[in-house]
């Protein structure tokens, strides 16, 4: 009997480039945010108060956004008896990924879509719409659920919420800076200096908001690539996910996922005008273009086949 002389080979290589880009983006975000916090501290007590209020809002958001999203979108938790196939897919992937089982939900909506919610692995929820359950084959659905579970593994809700915190703070200052004017200036006797301080902090906040917005979109796209990759690694079937993406692209331009909804949930708290956001959304999409995702999956498949 011939024993294998074949050399063990990692099925998938590492994607150092993606990780480097992600770290660079985060580094730039930290730099931009540091400037903002520096300015806030420089303008004094008022700025710090704004920071504290925003932190409280952040905590509130982290603990309630998934419940609010579930409540407003008509997402229902389903039992294994109701959706045996979906539960079976998620359970096997959880064994494979060594994850505790998240709550499994279905949204009764014909639009094919899936997303993950929750700030930690223990409190995670994965959700699929009725549309996607009907449209995809089991292997394709497995690819999509593995993509969502990778978001859970990578704690993407937490990462994106924290990463966008100061951007939210900046937009808060831009929109309500004049209301905080009294605070910024230190009270009653408005003088030229105080008004300048308000003007400077609003200008800096606007700049921070603009720059961080572009960076956040980039970060979100990188995390989508990472989730595609994680799905391929988890299932060992990159082409099944590619096939799912192709099917979905027929009915929609991209799979809206959790982070879009998180932004929407956030706007409920931060009262960011939805109009400004959605017009920018077209310019700076939070999901990478389909062709790029397909190309990345194709590369993974050729790595797997050993032809890369």
């Amino acid at each position: 009997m011939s024993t294998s002389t074949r050399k063990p080979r990692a099925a998938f290589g590492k994607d150092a480039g993606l990780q480097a880009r992600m770290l660079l983006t985060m580094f730039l975000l930290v730099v931009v945010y540091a400037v903002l916090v520096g300015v806030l501290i420089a303008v004094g007590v008022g700025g710090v108060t704004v920071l504290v209020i925003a932190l409280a809002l952040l905590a509130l958001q982290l603990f309630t956004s998934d419940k609010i999203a579930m409540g407003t979108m008509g997402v229902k938790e389903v039992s294994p008896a109701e959706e045996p196939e979906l539960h079976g897919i998620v359970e096997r992937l959880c064994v494979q990924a060594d994850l505790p089982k998240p709550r499994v939900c279905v949204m009764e909506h014909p639009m094919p879509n899936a997303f993950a919610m929750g700030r930690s692995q223990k409190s995670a929820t994965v959700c699929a719409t009725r549309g996607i359950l009907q449209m995809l084959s089991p292997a394709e659905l497995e690819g999509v659920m593995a993509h969502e579970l990778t978001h859970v593994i990578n704690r993407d809700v937490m990462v994106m919420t924290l990463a966008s915190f100061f951007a939210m703070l900046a937009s808060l200052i831009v929109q309500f800076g004049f209301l905080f004017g009294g605070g910024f200036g230190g009270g009653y006797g408005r003088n030229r200096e105080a008004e300048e301080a308000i003007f400077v902090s609003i200008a800096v906040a606007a700049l921070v908001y603009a720059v961080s917005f572009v960076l956040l979109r980039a970060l979100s796209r990188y995390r989508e690539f990472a989730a595609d990759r994680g799905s391929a690694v988890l299932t060992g079937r990159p082409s099944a996910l590619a096939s799912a993406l192709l099917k979905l692209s027929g009915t929609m331009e991209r799979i809206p996922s959790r982070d879009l909804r998180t932004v929407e949930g956030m706007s409920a708290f931060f009262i960011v005008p939805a109009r400004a956001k959605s017009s920018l959304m077209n310019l700076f999409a939070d999901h990478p273009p389909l062709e790029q995702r397909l190309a990345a999956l194709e590369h993974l498949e050729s790595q797997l086949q050993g032809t890369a």
Partner: protein
Amino acid sequence: VGLLDALTGRHQVKGPAPDRVFAITTAYITLQSEYQIEPTGAAAIVFQALATSEFQATIKEMEEVVRATGSESGTQVATQDDSYGYRWMVMRNPPGTPSVEDLAVAVNAVSSSIETAGHGERLLCAVFAFADRRAGGGPAGTSSSSSAVYFIYNYKRGSWYPFVPAPGSGSGGQSGERSTERELQLKAQLGSELPMEPELERWFPLWGIPI
């Protein structure tokens, strides 16, 4: 997942934990002698079959290895895919001579050749089938002859857990009720002999087990 891994979204699928498959070869003696739970002479190993020529070659070699090691004991091997796309390699003892040791050796031969080929992270679990012959094991009306009891080994965690489908349900491959009470009794009965999965939420059911 470390902090840097979480920040960069880098995620590797975990390889198998230190192998504790052979724990079943001592635990089953207690099952048999004290609780009248008999091995049925069948076991299976479940994994993701990669659609690559290299992995197919590995599977072929592995079947040959299992046949070779099983030729003296007469262990039969058969493969089938389930509806979720996972490959089941089913090992059966010759009729009338169930041997958990032979099955564990065969399961171990499969898992180690998958690991040797560098695909250890594709292993999902191993399943050993038993039959509960206690009279009155099920509710009145069901055949009291025997009911199925499975012990599932999770490769990622290196731990075991019992899986008992409630009598008369879930046999057709679709999910049904599981007898959680019986599973917890088994945990208490075997806890000192099998490395049991401590987190109950990781006791994932497997419906439609073909053994």
